[in-house]
Every structure is written in C-alpha cells, then in structure tokens.
C-alpha cells in the first residue's frame, strides 16, 4: 500500500488508547481500526482527517504517501 500510517504509534502516545476506544470515538468498528493500522484498508479522506484531528496532529503526520516508483 503506498499510504503508510502511524495510527498505532499515535494511540500509544495518547495514553495507550485501545483500538476499541479509538473506534468508539470515531464511530467506526474495531475491525476497521485494525484494518487501517495493518495497512489493509485505506480510510476515506474524511476519516483520515478525523483520526489526525483526534490525536491533535496534521494529516500528513499520521498518513504518509510513499511513492514506490521512486524507491
């Protein structure tokens, strides 16, 4: 997946927030958080912004586009 994320790190930094707590605050299922963290599901732009805002960060600090054609 060309978009990497640091949601797991952000959760750890936010007093070790659990996946369920994050899911409840975002209004999504825990399975969706698991999928996002493992990089198997790319969230919508809206959800990505909400995740970043929840951790008080800019979206590019949480989600990073990796251009695999340049590597």
């Amino acid at each position, binding site marked *: 997946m060309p978009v990497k994320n640091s949601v797991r790190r952000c959760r750890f930094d936010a007093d070790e927030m659990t996946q369920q707590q994050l899911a409840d605050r975002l209004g999504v299922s825990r*399975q969706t958080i698991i*999928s996002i963290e493992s990089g198997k599901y790319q969230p919508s732009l809206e959800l990505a912004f909400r995740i970043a805002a929840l951790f008080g960060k800019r979206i590019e600090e949480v989600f990073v586009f990796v251009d695999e054609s340049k590597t």
Partner: protein
Amino acid sequence: MCTNERLAWVCLVSIAVVYIPYFSFLTYLVQTSNVPPPLGVATIAFVGAIIAQMFITGIPAAIVGILDRKQVTDERDIAIRHKASTLAYVCLISCVLILVTGASLLRPMFPLLGDGVFIGQLGLLCVVISELSNYGVQVFEYRRTT
C-alpha cells in the same frame, strides 16, 4: 469477526444450502423424464426453497443481531458492500446475456430451451449466481482487509 461479516457468511451459506439442492432436484427431474419440470412441481419447489431460505437466513441473522447490538456499520462496510454489489451486477448481466445468447443459438438443438419453465429456472439460476458472488465477494473482502 464483525457482525456484517457474520451476516455475509450466513447469507452465503444459506443460499448455497438452499439452492444447490433445489437446482440438483430440478436437474434430476429433467434428466429422468427428459422433459421440463411441470409448472406445479417447479412452483412448489420454488416456494419451498424460499421458505427454507427465510428460516435458514432469518434465525441466525436474528441471533447475530441480538448478540452484537453495539456493532456499527461504518465506511469500510459500505465500501465492501458497494464493491460486492457492483461485481454482482456485472455477474448478473453477464449471466443473462450468456443465457439469452445461448438459448437463441442452441434452441434448434435443444428444444428444452424453448420451454417457459426451463427459461424461468435459468433466469433464477442467474440471480442465485449473482447473489452468491455478492456475498462471496463480501466475505472475501472482509477476510482480506482484517
């Protein structure tokens, strides 16, 4: 496993459990008598299949719904359903086109293809195949993204 994935499994299994025996039975009737199944027999079998599917799908779906009341439908579920329904639609259109083309081309060789009940059952088979692909894709996508 989330609620929506469980429901997709329930629907996939119920369709397979009901319609594989249903079409096997009709195929057996055609093979043994070499004529299309009578309208009465086909109708009774179809109504029986619908009632069986209502029970096989409804009871487990109700249990899953009661056990997982907190479960929410989020954007991932919607994306998976959208992808599955798109592929199912393509599958349905493809099956119908193959059926119409095949029936018109092969009718001189196989007179059965001119029978209304037989054509109706082939149409139902197209719907069943598209529903199987719909729930099959949902299950696959839930497995892939978890």
